[in-house]
């Protein structure tokens, strides 16, 4: 095979060819961890497609063979009425470009296969939902590339094809073409990613988080990305597929709830996280799905922790003798030190966490909850206000201006609300999906809990935490992990004089 590489332990190609995601999946297979069977179409095929406007010679024949291999591995048939094979088609460039390129899920659900899967699972509602998701993601993949220069060359009429192989070819083209969407181009410009490298495409047998009550999906960090503490951290969504989080149709639960609801999955996940940490010698992050009580890993990413969390992880890993002290020092840049000095919420036991979103603008703010912009503007005369909205519109601008901090239950770190929070320099938390804003009842709800307007909360625009009460802020003055790391730095530089943290680190780096 020239263009296609199976996701098996034997595959030995570089991340430049397999893409970061594909390379990580091969690593997981080598560790003996559960990865849905699949194959990677290399970035060189993407480059050929973008250059010539069509799939390269020989790829089609390889695609047929690769699908046959997948059929053999799963005991299923692509597009068949009996035990149909259903696949996901995802992008995966050498350098991660999250959300910039197309993904097609549940591909292969032709009319016949849909009927077959419904009969097999005895759950027609689940299969109809899967089919709908396929049609939606397939259409979106094409829409995104419509205004693009590649549009003229993409296969036409495929959106309506009811042939599984035709669907697959079309989806591969759509993912390749999505490399050149203006948004992806802009992303590369801003992040110094070469325009000519192209993306790999990963085709895998689908695992369904919406299959039954013992299914679901989530993300897990091997350690807490806010503190670096050695506790698994993340979100889980029971009975749903991952895209439901993005669309805001479902609410995630803290990862730890998996322990009680699916102890076997939880046990397997903890073991996998441990195994992955040992391999990468770093904290890591995985995306996972469990289907009918069975765990599958869909992506792995080592590292990525920042600030205080990165410092703690580096020091702890050295203590655990997974890395040496020099490696620990090498992993911490002056930027991590600067980040570590961002004001954070005072930590401690017994914090009454109302909800957790994503940090949109760093900083800590405390104030009384207001649930409309008008009330925020009025209440601000009597002291600090935290404006809590589902999302923001220009009609909320006067409330945003009056508020000390901003929370939204929807939207992400690049929503209008997040942009406005940063423009105004106000601590902001977005995507706090557990919260519902009830304007009529003048309150905020989190599950069973009802918090009235006027209640004092503290928000942390770094970690995304929303905590009841006024907690005050803590800038790190005494941080034992930081102090130990800097002691190691002084040992290496041989300079123990009093000077700023950054100078101590830089002096050590110069000698590493």
């Amino acid at each position: 095979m020239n263009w296609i590489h199976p996701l098996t332990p034997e595959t030995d190609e570089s991340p430049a060819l397999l893409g970061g995601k594909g390379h990580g999946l091969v690593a997981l297979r080598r560790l003996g961890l559960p990865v849905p069977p699949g194959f990677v179409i290399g970035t060189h095929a993407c480059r050929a497609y973008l250059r010539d406007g069509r799939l390269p010679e020989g790829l089609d024949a390889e695609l047929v063979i690769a699908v046959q291999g997948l059929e053999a591995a799963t005991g299923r048939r692509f597009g068949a009425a009996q035990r149909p094979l259903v696949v996901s088609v995802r992008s995966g460039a050498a350098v991660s470009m999250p959300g910039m390129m197309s993904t097609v899920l549940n591909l292969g659900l032709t009319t016949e296969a849909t009927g077959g899967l419904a009969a097999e699972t005895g759950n027609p509602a689940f299969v109809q939902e899967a089919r709908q998701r396929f049609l939606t993601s397939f259409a979106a993949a094409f829409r995104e590339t419509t205004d693009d220069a590649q549009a003229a060359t993409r296969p036409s009429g495929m959106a309506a094809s009811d042939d599984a192989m035709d669907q697959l070819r079309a989806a591969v083209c759509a993912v390749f073409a999505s490399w050149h969407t203006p948004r992806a181009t802009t992303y590369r410009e801003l992040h110094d990613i070469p325009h000519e490298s192209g993306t790999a495409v990963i085709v895998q047998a689908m695992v369904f988080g919406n299959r039954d009550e013992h299914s679901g999906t989530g993300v897990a960090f091997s350690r807490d990305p806010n503190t670096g503490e050695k506790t698994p951290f993340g979100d889980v969504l029971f009975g749903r597929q991952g895209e439901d989080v993005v669309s805001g149709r479902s609410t995630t639960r803290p990862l730890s709830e998996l322990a009680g609801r699916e102890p076997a999955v939880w046990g397997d996940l903890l073991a996998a996280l441990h195994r992955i940490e040992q391999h990468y010698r770093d904290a890591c992050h995985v995306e996972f799905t469990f289907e009918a009580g069975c765990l599958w890993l869909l992506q792995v990413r080592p590292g990525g922790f920042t600030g205080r969390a990165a410092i703690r992880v580096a020091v702890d890993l050295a203590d655990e003798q997974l890395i040496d002290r020099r490696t620990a020092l090498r992993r911490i840049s002056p930027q991590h030190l600067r980040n570590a000095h961002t004001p954070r919420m005072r930590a401690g036991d017994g914090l009454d966490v109302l909800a957790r979103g994503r940090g949109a603008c760093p900083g800590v703010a405390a104030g009384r909850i207001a649930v409309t912009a008008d009330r925020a503007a009025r209440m601000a005369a009597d002291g600090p206000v935290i404006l809590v909205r589902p999302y923001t519109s220009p009609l909320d601008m006067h409330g945003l201006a009056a508020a000390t901090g901003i929370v939204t239950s929807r939207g992400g770190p690049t929503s209008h609300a997040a942009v406005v929070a940063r423009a105004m320099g106000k601590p902001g938390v977005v995507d706090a999906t557990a919260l519902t804003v009830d304007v009529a009842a003048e309150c905020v709800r989190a599950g069973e809990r009802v918090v009235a307007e006027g209640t004092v909360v503290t928000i942390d625009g770094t970690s995304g935490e929303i905590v009841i009460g006024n907690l005050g802020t803590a800038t790190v003055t005494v941080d034992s992990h930081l102090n130990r790391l800097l002691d190691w730095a002084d040992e290496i530089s041989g300079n123990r004089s009093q000077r700023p943290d950054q100078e101590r680190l830089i002096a050590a780096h110069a000698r590493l």
Partner: protein
Amino acid sequence: MTGSDESLALHALRCIGFAELSRVADAAGLPEAEAESQLIDLAVAGLVTRTPSEFGGWGLTEAGRVEDARRITGELDATGARDAVAAAYEKFMVLNPELLDLCSAWHLRTVDGVVASNDHSDRAYDARVLERFVDLDQRAEAVCADLAAALPRFRRYRTRLAAALDRAQSGALEELVDSTTSYHIVWFQLHEDLLATLGIPRQ
């Protein structure tokens, strides 16, 4: 219809939220005196109010919001522009995530794998972000042209977006994302206008 003369000021308020006279006039594309006269008529009709406070200004009442929706829907049906506006909205929504990426890149940047606030000390980086704004604006211009062809009141957005970008290119970099007249704020209002015009709830 209770005289549609002051519809421009009413709808401007619907899209920009509480604002001082100068901003209402700018959004509506009216001389200030004319905008003020419209606002006073609207206030007499109970459709807008003026709140004198630090975060106040002119704002819509609930009745004003209902009346604006009625007039906007009427305009859309009378002109037969619904399909054209809906098609332009689709194109706008392709550009919207890219614009928000750019605004985020203006405030935040990844250095050594750490997302840090952009302290604007690296002029080359800022120039790169500005260049991408200009590139996106060229594509936005086509969407604005479609909208203006469908409903003339949308013409104002092209003028305001181009003016914000001009100011930024002349060195007033806060006109990209940070000021109340910035490219992002005008874009945000255009987004609101499209949702209001088509009667789509914000997601």
